[in-house]
C-alpha cells in the first residue's frame, strides 16, 4: 500500500519503548540517485531533528514508530541542515523536462512506506512515474520529456 508525502505530513513520531510522542513529521528527505526516502525531519526551525530511515521501525498510516528517543539526532552535516530547514522539500519544487519546459510544481509524492522507495510524483492530477526522473536539485526536479 502506497503512502503520500502530503498525507504523511504532520504524522506523529512515537517511541516504541516509552509509547511517548516525540514530535511530528515535517519533511521527508529523498536521495536523488537512489530514489528513496533516506531520512525524516521531525519538528521545525532550530529544534528540528533528523531520523535516519534505517531507524524507522514502522511507517504506519497513523504513526511513525521508532525504537526510542535516541533515533532522533540534530542535523549532522550541510545536507541534513538544509533538509531540516525544509530546503530539500520536494512538494512545491519546480519540475522541468529535459527539453527545458516548465511542467509546474510537484504537488505530492507517492512512496512505499515499507521500503521508502519513491514510486511517482504528482503534478496536480497528473502522475509522473519515478522512472522518468533524471535529477533532483535546489533549482528544479528534472524529468524526461516523454513525461510532458
Amino acid at each position, binding site marked *: 500500500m502506497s503512502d503520500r508525502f502530503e498525507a504523511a505530513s504532520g504524522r506523529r513520531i512515537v517511541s516504541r519503548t516509552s509509547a511517548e510522542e516525540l514530535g511530528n513529521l515535517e519533511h521527508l528527505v529523498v536521495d*536523488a540517485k537512489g530514489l528513496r526516502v533516506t531520512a525524516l525531519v521531525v519538528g521545525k526551525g532550530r529544534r528540528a531533528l533528523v531520523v535516519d530511515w534505517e531507524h524507522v521501525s514502522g511507517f504506519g498510516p497513523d504513526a511513525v514508530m521508532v525504537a526510542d528517543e535516541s533515533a532522533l539526532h540534530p542535523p549532522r552535516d550541510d545536507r541534513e541542515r538544509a533538509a531540516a530547514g525544509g530546503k530539500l522539500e520536494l512538494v512545491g519544487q519546480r519540475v*522541468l*523536462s*529535459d*527539453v*527545458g*519546459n*516548465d511542467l509546474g510544481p510537484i504537488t505530492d509524492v507517492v512512496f512505499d512506506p515499507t521500503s521508502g522507495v519513491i514510486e511517482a510524483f504528482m503534478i496536480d492530477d497528473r502522475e509522473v512515474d519515478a522512472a522518468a526522473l*533524471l*535529477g*533532483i*536539485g*535546489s*533549482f*528544479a*526536479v*528534472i524529468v524526461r*520529456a516523454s513525461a510532458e
Partner: protein
Amino acid sequence: MRLLVTGSSIRGLPVVTIGGGEDVAEVRDVIYSPEAGRVVGLTLNKRGFLAGRCREVLPAEMIHAIGRDAVMIDDEDSLILPEDAPADVGTPPSGRDVTGDEVLTEGGTSLGHVRDVVVLVGTAGQVVGYEIDTAAGRTGYIPLSTQLAVSGSALIVPEATADFVRDDLVGLGAAVDEFRARLRIR
C-alpha cells in the same frame, strides 16, 4: 506543434543541469552563425546575487535543448572557457551580427530588415527563420532556407520567400515546412 521563439526571448533563461537540477548560469546572448543557419553557442551571466558576466561560454554541441523555460545541459562541465571553445563560439568574428541587415530576394525585392532570429524550441539552437521589420513598417516573420548568401549588410533569400512572410510565430511555424517543400520541388 512546432514551438518557435525569438533569440531575444532566450536571453535571461536559466541554464540548468539535467542530472543535478541546478541553475548554473543564465543566458546573456545568442551567438548566431548566418552561414550555418544556427545558434553556435550562448554567452552567459552568473545567477543570483553575483549577477554579472560569466567568463565561460556554452557551445551548441553541449546544449541538450533550448526550451521554453530553460536551457538544459548535462552537467556543469558543459560550460567551457572561450579559449577551449570552438573558434566561432570562443572568439566570434565581428560584423557577423545579422540584426539590421536588409533582406533581399534573388529577384531584387526588399522584404525588410532583420530584427531577430527565430529558434525552434527543443533543439540545440536550430534557426528556422527571421523576425523582420517589413518595408511597410510592420513586424514580419520569414522562413530561412539553407542556401543563403550573406554579406555584412544584406541577406539574399530565394524569391519564394516573399510568398511566406507571416505576421506571427504561429504562422511562421506552419510556413516553414511548406516553404522547404516548395524549394525542394524546384
